[in-house]
C-alpha cells in the first residue's frame, strides 16, 4: 500500500506535469483538488486515463472520479479494492 501511494505520487507529478512539486510535498490525505494540490477537471480526466492505462480500471462516468481522486489515500484504497476483486 505504501509503495502504491509512492508510485501514485510519482505518476501524478509526471502525468500532470507538476514540475515544481516533489513527492514529499504530497501528503497521503492532502486533497488533490481545489485547496490542496489545485488540480482541476482536466486533471481528473488525465487521472482517469492513468487508472485505465496503468491499473486496468475503467471509469465510465467522470463523476465517479470525484470520490476516488480525493487524495492519494483514497486512490490507493480504490485501486487495491479493485485489484482484490
Amino acid at each position, binding site marked *: 500500500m505504501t509503495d502504491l501511494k509512492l508510485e501514485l505520487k510519482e505518476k501524478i507529478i509526471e*502525468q*500532470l*506535469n*507538476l*514540475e*515544481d512539486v516533489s513527492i514529499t510535498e504530497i501528503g497521503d490525505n492532502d486533497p488533490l483538488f481545489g485547496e490542496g494540490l*489545485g488540480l482541476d477537471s*482536466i486533471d481528473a*480526466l*488525465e487521472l482517469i*486515463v492513468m487508472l*485505465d*492505462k496503468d491499473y486496468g480500471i475503467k471509469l465510465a462516468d467522470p463523476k465517479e472520479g470525484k470520490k476516488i481522486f480525493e487524495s492519494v489515500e483514497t486512490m490507493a484504497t480504490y485501486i487495491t479494492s479493485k485489484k482484490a476483486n
Partner: protein
Amino acid sequence: MTKRVYINSVGSVSAQKTFENDSFLDEITVHYDTTISVISPNYKDYIPPAAARRMAKGIKMSTVSSKTALDEAGLENVDAIIVGTGLGCIDDSEKFISAIIDNKEQFLTPTRFIQSSHNSVSGQIALGIGCKGYNYSYVHSAASFESCLIDAMMQIQLEEAKNILVGGVDELVAHHVDTHRLIDHIKKTPVESSKLLTSKTAGCVMAEGAHFFVLSEKKQASTYAELIGVRTYNTLSKEQLAQTVTEFLREHELNSDAIDLVVLGYNGDVNFDAYYDLLTQDMFLNTAQAYYKHLSGEYDTASGFGFWLASKVARTNTLPAAARLNQITTATPRTILLYNQYRGEYHSLVLLRQC
C-alpha cells in the same frame, strides 16, 4: 468622424532577442539553418509554474508577448482579444495525432486535444486576465495576423471597443517541418541570414514567434504609430500588384511618393520573391526599403514581426542596419507601407503613420 486607431504598445518573442522592449535589434543573432527557433525569455519570470504546466510553447510565447504589450500600454484588461495563428498549438496537435495512431486510439489524454483547438491562445489569455469581451481567432495562413488588424480597426472605428489586444503566434514543429520540406516549402540546404535573398533556392527558412500589440482609440505616451489601413487579397497576379498598391494608397489619399519606408516580406524563396521585386525595382525604387524574414524566419504570422519592426521604426526614427534592403535612408519615416504574401497567395498591405 471615424475614430483613429493607435498602436499603443508592442510585445515580441522571436528568433531575435526582442522580448524586452527597451532595445531594438541592437544585437543581431545570425542564423545559419533551414529552421530557426525563438530566443526564449525565461518563461518562469512571466508565468507561475502551476499555470505553465499545461501550456504549449505557443501559449507561453503568447503569454510573455501579450503581457509585455499590456504592461507597456498600462492596461490590465482590454475590451477584446483577437489572435491570428496559422496552425495554433500544432505541436500538441501532432503529438495527439501520433498518439492516436501509435496507441491505436487507446489511453489518450485530453490536454493535447484541448491545446490543439486553434483558439486556445486567445482563450487562455482571456482566462488569464479575466477578459469577458469579444474573443476571436483567425486561422488564415499568412493573412491570419492581418485579419486581426482588420477586425480590430473596424471595432475601434465602429466604437465597439476602446482597447484591443491583437496578436499573431505560430510554433515551429518537427513533423510540420519535415513534411513541408518534402514539398519544397522549406529549404533543403541551410542559408546564412544575410544571404537569404541571394540563396536562389526554393522554399523558406521556417521559424516561430509571437507578436502582440494593444490597439486603442486614444493616443498616449507609449504610442508607436497610427494604423491607417489594412487590406488582404486571396490572390493577386503580378500584373495586378502595382495597380492594387496604387489603389490601396489612393483609398487613403496617398500616392507612392508619400511612402517614406516600405517593409517587405521577402523570404528568400526563389519562386515567389519576384512579387517584392516588382515593387522594389519600380514603384519604390527610390524609397527606403526594409526586409525582416532573414531575422525572424518565415511562419504564418511572421508579418507580425514586420508590424513590430515598422512600429519600432516609427517610434524611434531608426531603421536598424540589419533590416535595410537598399542604401536609401529616411530621417523621418512618417508613412510606412508593409507588403507581404506567401507563395503567391494571402497578400496583405498595411499602412502606418507616425503620430
